């Protein structure tokens, strides 16, 4: 049951249903009858976390085991945090209302760097010491994390007992089984951690020592107590056999994505050089049409949702996409369900695919050309041409679309002013195209350009690159604004201070743990929310810790520098990234994996060629 202190104040906060639990689909078990309790923590508010697919998968997976219980925990919004601190309410899990400090596992998913201070805040709200070394020898609670940002977990190394690398469907249960056995035998925390480090995909940061050169770069990363030299991520080789839930928790309040998702494929064949996800989730693996349709229909029936999303990094790259759409549309049209395809590529966006989705929903169309000129698109290996963009827009305008959203990045390697002006020119060509079409859709044309500052990420060919300085980004933003002529084109640009912090944390080392703790102590949390982000407090934290954000964000790394994530193995070889980096600077493109294998190394886990 929820705390009485809490219910007395629930009407004082926005959207109290964020904090009550009780949704349809939640799993409630008898605490007396479960052996291991797992608090799945999403380090942002409910509205964001409840849209996250990975949580839905792992929540159901753990709960399928009768004697394990996984519950959900989210970061409170500022109004609720204030009440919790004032009333002494400790962070609790939504299903049971129990304080998570008594759980066996407190597991966070690392989805984006700017959620890191939320982790510290949530641990503190839970009454759990933020520093790993202060948690003592009692085996629980084990504070663990997984998710994409675990590929460089170093800025969080001193807060966590262990990190889970790669796909969690198998390793999470292996880890819980080991814990269950060892706890029964009275093992201590450090005994457990040493043993856990032997499971493939488990990284125990306290078993590694990092030394630094005088210039601040890393000298060495050395394992001790038998920990492996390299920790390899886990992969589920066959997607049709991968666990997928049949039921999900259905939130009362509207989350950012209020729909049900079926994952259609993992990995990406494209190799865009800026895109971390495109490399982290390799190798490319599809689910069969049959699996996708079966899972999609089952989820719709069990949830009552009227929107089904086919989710992946690039859904139109599924080899059977048209068959999948045909089969699913047979069901969804009859059942009044909208089918949505969030990630389509411009180049294979065929007339028939477009027709299929327009029968269902006619809203905006979103493209991500990422760069304004062909030269720069070649550099980043975003293999789409202006011709393809215009051809697709033409199809879309004929199909009744009048809203086009275009995503770009600023500050890409080798970028010049010409490339920035190219963004405005491309948008203008789309405007001109619209008005040149006699058969264009009725309605007001609206082109929105959204630009984000490029953040170099680990495990990409751009991991060596410096991020553009703030002043340079501001200048380029102004340049772009001046270059836009048409009133039909609207722009929105990302704040660059956030991007710099993101760049720092993405490629940071262990010394940043102190900065994170300091920033959080200064009051930083919910940093991905514009109204909460406080740049000066972050810069102050760096000063206090005698570290320079520019060292992490704006410095070019040599190919032979030891990266903070050197001991983490995501299957893709460093020599591949160096090769791709060189090709980028030479303006050479790399064909998609389906056209030609570029030898990244990801297929070693499959023991065969990907295609």
């Amino acid at each position, binding site marked *: 049951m929820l705390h009485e202190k809490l219910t007395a104040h629930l009407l004082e906060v926005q959207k109290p*249903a964020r904090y009550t*639990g*009780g*949704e*349809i689909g939640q799993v409630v078990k008898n605490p007396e009858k479960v052996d291991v309790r797992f608090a799945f923590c999403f380090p942002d508010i409910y509205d964001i976390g409840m849209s996250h697919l990975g949580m839905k998968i792992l929540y159901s997976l753990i709960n399928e085991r009768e004697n394990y219980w996984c519950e959900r925990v989210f970061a409170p919004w500022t109004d609720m945090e204030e009440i919790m601190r004032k009333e002494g309410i400790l962070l609790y899990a939504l299903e049971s209302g129990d304080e998570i400090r008594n759980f066996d596992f407190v597991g966070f998913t690392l989805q984006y760097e700017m959620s890191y201070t939320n982790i510290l805040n949530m641990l503190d709200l839970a009454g759990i010491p933020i520093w790993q070394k202060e948690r003592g020898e009692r085996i629980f609670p084990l504070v663990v994390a997984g998710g994409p940002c675990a590929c460089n977990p170093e800025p969080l190394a001193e807060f966590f007992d262990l990190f889970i690398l790669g796909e969690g469907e198998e390793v999470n249960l292996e880890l819980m089984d080991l814990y269950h056995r060892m706890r029964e035998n009275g093992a201590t925390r450090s005994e457990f951690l040493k043993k856990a480090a032997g499971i493939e995909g488990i990284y125990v940061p306290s078993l590694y020592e990092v030394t630094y050169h005088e210039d601040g770069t890393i000298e060495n990363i050395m394992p001790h107590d038998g920990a492996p030299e390299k920790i390899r991520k886990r992969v589920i080789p066959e997607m049709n056999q991968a666990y997928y839930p049949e039921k999900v928790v*259905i939130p*009362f309040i*509207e989350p950012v994505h209020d729909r049900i998702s079926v994952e259609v494929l993992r990995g990406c064949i494209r190799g865009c050089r800026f895109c971390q996800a495109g490399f982290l989730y390799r190798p490319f693996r599809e689910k069969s049409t049959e699996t996708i349709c079966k899972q999609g229909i089952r989820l719709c029936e069990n949830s009552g949702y*009227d929107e089904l999303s086919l989710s992946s990094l690039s859904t139109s790259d599924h080899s059977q996409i048209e068959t999948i759409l045909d089969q699913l549309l047979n069901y969804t049209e009859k059942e*009044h369900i909208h089918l949505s395809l969030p990630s389509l590529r411009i180049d294979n966006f065929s007339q028939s695919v477009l027709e299929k989705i327009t029968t269902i929903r006619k809203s905006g169309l979103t493209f991500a050309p990422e760069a304004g000129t062909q030269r720069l698109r070649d550099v980043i290996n975003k293999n789409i041409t202006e011709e393809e963009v215009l051809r697709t827009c033409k199809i879309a305008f004929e199909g009744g679309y009048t809203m086009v959203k275009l995503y770009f990045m600023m500050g890409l390697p080798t970028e010049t002013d010409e490339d920035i002006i190219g963004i405005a020119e491309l948008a203008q060509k789309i405007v001109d195209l619209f008005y040149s079409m006699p058969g264009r859709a009725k309605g007001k044309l609206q082109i929105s350009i959204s630009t984000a500052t490029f953040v170099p990420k680990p495990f990409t060919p751009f991991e060596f690159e410096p991020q553009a300085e703030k002043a340079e980004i501001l200048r380029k933003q102004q340049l772009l604004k001046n270059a836009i002529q048409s009133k039909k084109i609207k722009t929105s640009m990302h704040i660059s201070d956030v991007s710099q912090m993101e760049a720092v944390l993405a490629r940071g080392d262990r010394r940043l743990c102190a900065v994170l703790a300091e920033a959080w102590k200064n009051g930083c949390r919910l940093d991905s929310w514009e109204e909460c982000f406080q740049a000066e407090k972050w810069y102050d934290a760096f000063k206090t810790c005698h570290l320079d954000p520019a060292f992490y964000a704006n410095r070019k790394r040599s190919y032979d520098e030891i990266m903070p994530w050197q001991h983490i193995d995501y299957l893709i070889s460093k020599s591949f990234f160096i090769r791709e980096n060189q090709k980028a600077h030479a303006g050479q493109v790399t064909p998609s994996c389906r056209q030609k294998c570029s030898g990244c190394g990801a297929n070693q886990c499959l023991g065969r060629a990907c295609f």
Partner: protein
Amino acid sequence: MKDYRMIFTKTGMSKYISHLDLNRCMFRAIRRSGLPAWYTEGFHPHLYLMFPLALPLGVESLCEIMDFRLNEERPEKEILEKLNAELPEGIQALTIHEPKMQAQEIISAEYQLCFRSEMNLLPLWENFMQQPEIFIEKKTKKGMIQIDIHPLMNIKHMTSGNQKLCLTLQLPAGSTQNVNILTVAEKFQKCAFQAISIKNIRRTKIFSENFQEFF
């Protein structure tokens, strides 16, 4: 096509589900139930659902109303069972029947209102009610207006004691005139200048003319 009216409870933690969220919750419950729901005609068909009287967030109820349509007639018992299987804790369908009255016929509602405080609440309440007028602010299309709720409050029953005060109170409800029970409770808290907490508010009845229960 067949119209149905559901009378349902909204108690316990489900009182924190907002009106908009309740709409989505019911929509999905009907879809999951497998009942042959009726969809509106037209370009964007949607499931027809109607709530004749909204309930403020944080207020419990024993008598909420939802109207919906099925493509074909089904036994009321079957509908009741199928929907109850899909409803969250605290929300329970009590009856399913053919609507007998129109939504516009709703004129008032009855509430149970309980306050708690460190002090004796009865004299505070008596002071409150002895005021000649009790004005509350109300947002309308023309901006904020002042309404005297004193003549609109029909107190049917009152018990007090042990730092507790419970009232049974009837207030205008519906499309012609509506007084939000929460604003009444908050007005008392404010006028008393004392630390008074609202223990619970619960809607118990909805009336049409002549004190007939809405059905």
